[in-house]
């Protein structure tokens, strides 16, 4: 769902659960994951439900992923970097 007409930064490659995913400099991890089809990220606190993205601006702490080994990172507040390793706890792809 990338908008065709927008000027984009240079391509970067991310590793999402070990798989290579292309993104563009200037995009958030949130956007890159969404473009790759990821809407589900983890289970809820009690494990009865799933969580993905909600507020997109760092308030809700729904979109927690592991980035470069550090858990509990908000995907919406991080810009992609080449070689970034992202782990999603409960992907449903």
């Amino acid at each position, binding site marked *: 769902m990338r908008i065709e007409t927008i000027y984009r930064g240079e391509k970067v490659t991310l590793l999402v659960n070990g798989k290579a995913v292309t993104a563009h400099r*200037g995009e958030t991890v949130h956007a890159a994951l969404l473009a790759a089809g990821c809407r*589900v990220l983890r289970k809820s606190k009690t494990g009865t*439900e799933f969580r993905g993205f909600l*507020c997109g601006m760092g308030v809700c*702490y*729904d979109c927690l992923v592991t980035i470069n080994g550090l858990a509990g990172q908000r995907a919406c507040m991080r810009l992609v970097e080449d070689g970034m390793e992202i782990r999603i706890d409960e992907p449903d792809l």
Partner: protein
Amino acid sequence: MSRTCDVAIVGAGFAGLAAADVLARSGLDIRVFDENPHVGGQLLRRPGGTSHGPGGFEFDGIKRSGLRLVARVARRGVKVNGGTQVLGLFPGNTLLVQGGDGRVSEITARCVLCASGARETYIPFKGWTLPGVISTGSAQILIKSSGMLPAKETLIGGLGPLPFVLAREISRHGGKVSAILDHGGVLDKIGLLRTLPRNLPKLLDGAWIMVLLALRGIRVRPRMRILEASGKTRLESVVAARASGEGAIISGTEIRYQTECLAVGFGFAPNIELLLQAGCIAAHVPERGGWVVQVGDILETSMENVFAAGEVTGIAGARKSLIEGRIAGLAIRERLGCPAPATPQMLHGLACERRDELRYGAVLNRMCRLPGDWVKGIQEETIICRCEDVRMADIRKALAHGFATPGALRKACRCGLGNCQGRICSPILRDILAAVAKPDPARLAAPSVRPPIKAVRLGALAENEEIVTVGSASPPDP
């Protein structure tokens, strides 16, 4: 970064930048902090993590003014510390700050300006936690900051102008909008006419959006209520129905939409957490959007040399933020002994403009309230605290046991004890308490906020310049 400065500004949106603009000409040492990688706050987002670039035409030139402001502030040499979160404000005006490199440090300012803006509020419904249910703001950010549509086709719902503005953005960029489920009605919007003639450009923009949506055949359904979102692991369908003027669901009007993305927007809440944590007095003012920090004419809070500007003093949009940023900047310059020329006249003019914008804000905020006793309709399985999976049934049980204040519910149900520290659920909880438990209003106190106001890595807090030795052979010094 040195340990002290003259002015620390928290937030580089309209208010923070307007203040920085005024202060930049004073020779004072100012620091600006923003947790985002870009400058300009929620409203000035452009692809590439910058705030430059093309945008659609708008009658209201506020965004154009904003972009000019961003450029001007940069030209004047004000550096914004991006990717930086402020963790707390402590006695003596010391801020605990985590920089983009992850390091935590302290900086003491003679004056602090909190311009931390607003976040969206939510009206919960069964299944709203499913991946695929997002906020309208989240969709806007995807489009503006990352050049991404939230989905091929998006269903939109909510109150106030947000759903319409988003629909316009999505369709402009080639996306599809299934429908707009307006929880308000046509009559709610009439109130906006009272803000003429000053707000003519905004209203023209609004009217223009409605025309464009009609031209594209995007269905707008007024007086709808989202009843349920369902799906196995992610959103698959949404059921909505019409509600009467008093808020009762009209049976037989249910519509089901098959969709993977529902964007909801119900209004805003001020981000006053830093000010609450510091000990500033706040008040619950519905026409200002809920809990706001109390400020005087020059926007000083109840704490000396702590100022607040923008959405934190009341939800009213970008223009008020610009005006208040200027007021705070002028007031701080005067307080620190380098007043701008003609300050009294400027403050007088700004005060008048501020009053006008507050009136506009009151209309907006009234639009963002659901009619009737909507809390009664919250289904038992509806999650109220997303972080801790607390459902309406748990809350009703706690209320029945006599836990009837926000603090008591926190202790009884764990509502608000999760990662978001109650930012999402507090406004909802307040409405539930006000409606269901009918307590003494004095008991609906503002949530108590302790630092860190945003999550911070334990190791980052632990690091310090001093060398720490553990398990030394010799006894420690007395």
